[in-house]
């Protein structure tokens, strides 16, 4: 039943993409739109095939930068959220700082990161980490505080330690929130990595887009954007699978 529904949803999505491509194809041909304004989908596809190796290599670089930033950003966020859920004073100290990080315009400090960390992988990972940090912090914090108070009381009457309550109750209670944080953060991490590459890099999809922009080479530009989108969709699907496995007990997971 659900497998059939997934297939139908997939078919609808593919159909929509094909329809858009056909419309663009016809339009660019009929109107003779120059390829430096809007390339025909067939030209983009041909270019992607021709440069498949390049796109895969640069896509892999962007993906690894985003993944590194995601792991660091969400990891630090979870540790801080744990500390904040543990103690009110820490919550009141750390939360304004977290908002400061959140309000800092990434695009404005990205060149600064390049200045500090050079042209290598480090500034991209740092930007991806910074951009994923806040959504994960808020979600982890709310999640850890969401534990059922009756169940906390029950564990306390058994003499369970704070650490046991954390492990057996607070972390599992936080899981649905962690997943929604991860979904938001994953896409942000990709954007962060591209922004980092944009401001100064010799590799990655951001670099490909930057150079293509300068040369009005729109077929490779669109190709790179499509690869980025594919990576994002795959990452989301991966989280979805993990979510269904780990949250099978959760009403939301049961409903979908």
């Amino acid at each position, binding site marked *: 039943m659900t497998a059939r529904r997934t297939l139908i949803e997939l078919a609808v999505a593919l159909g929509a993409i094909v329809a858009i491509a056909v419309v663009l194809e016809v339009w660019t041909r009929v109107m003779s739109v120059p390829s430096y304004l809007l390339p025909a989908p067939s030209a983009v596809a041909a270019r992607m095939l021709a440069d498949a190796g390049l796109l895969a290599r640069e896509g892999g670089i962007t993906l690894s930068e985003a993944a590194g930033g995601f792991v660091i950003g969400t990891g630090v966020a979870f540790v801080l959220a744990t500390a904040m859920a543990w103690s009110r004073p820490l919550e009141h100290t750390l939360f304004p700082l977290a908002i400061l990080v959140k309000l800092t315009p990434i695009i404005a400090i990205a060149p600064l990161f390049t200045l500090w960390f050079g042209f290598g992988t480090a500034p991209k990972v740092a930007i991806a980490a910074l951009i994923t940090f806040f959504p994960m912090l808020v979600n982890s914090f709310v999640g850890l505080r969401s534990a*059922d108070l*009756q169940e906390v009381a029950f564990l306390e009457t058994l*003499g369970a330690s704070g650490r046991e309550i954390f492990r057996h109750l607070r972390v599992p209670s936080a899981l649905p929130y962690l997943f929604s944080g991860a979904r938001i953060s994953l896409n942000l991490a990709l954007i962060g990595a591209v922004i980092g590459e944009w401001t100064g890099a010799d590799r990655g999809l951001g670099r490909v887009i930057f150079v293509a922009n300068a040369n009005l080479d729109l077929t490779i530009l669109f190709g790179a954007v499509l690869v980025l989108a594919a990576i994002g969709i795959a990452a989301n699907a991966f989280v979805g699978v993990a979510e269904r496995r780990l949250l099978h007990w959760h009403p939301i997971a049961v409903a979908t």
Partner: protein
Amino acid sequence: MPAAIALHGVSAGYTAPVLRDIDLEVGNEVVAIVGRSGSGKTTLLRLIAGLIEPTSGTVDLLGVAPAVARRRKRIGFVAQDSRLHPWRTVRENVTLPLEVNRRAQTNGHVSADEWVARMGLSDAIDAYPHQLSGGMRQRVALARSLVIDPEVLLMDEPLASLDELTRDDLRDELLRLWEGRARSVVYVTHDIEEAVFLADRVAVIGGRPARIVGGVEISLARPRTKVMRRGPGFYDLVEEVRKHLE
């Protein structure tokens, strides 16, 4: 031998005082605490469990402070409408008390699976809480509080959220439980008939802040059966409790 549960001159509260001058001793018996909604029944139970500290007076559990009794895993606790741990199966929920605070010795001779069976849940042992009815969830809550074989059993309106038929069944279950093995049970309820039917003694709390305003010895024989609820004497006792409440 000192009473299993002893409260002497206990007052407690949060921002405003909730309980005042509570004196209560519970031996190997079932004491029902009856009071109106919001009268402080749950606070009293939390006080006995050591989840909150009294502002004055003393609370002793098995001759020690509640915090010590907790660390020794001597307290069973059943709340109203337990949500259990939704990511654990029935069996895993019942074994949870054995997995935490492992340093404490528990004197349970009855396995988790056996408790599940006694609660009539063997068929659902691998089910998750969201697959169970409210009555089944409360049976699991009961099983998991008994798996450590606690001397003291604290129950906070464990049947309040259930339908009448399920409640009847579970009441019988409870009677069988504590008629089988002597324990000190504090049973909080707002249902007077339930209190009379289940308890050896009913303590009524009322006022603001709440005091114990009356006690009624329940002279009904054990084992108790549903027939007694229609028998002579039952409604006299119910009336007596009701008078204290008014």
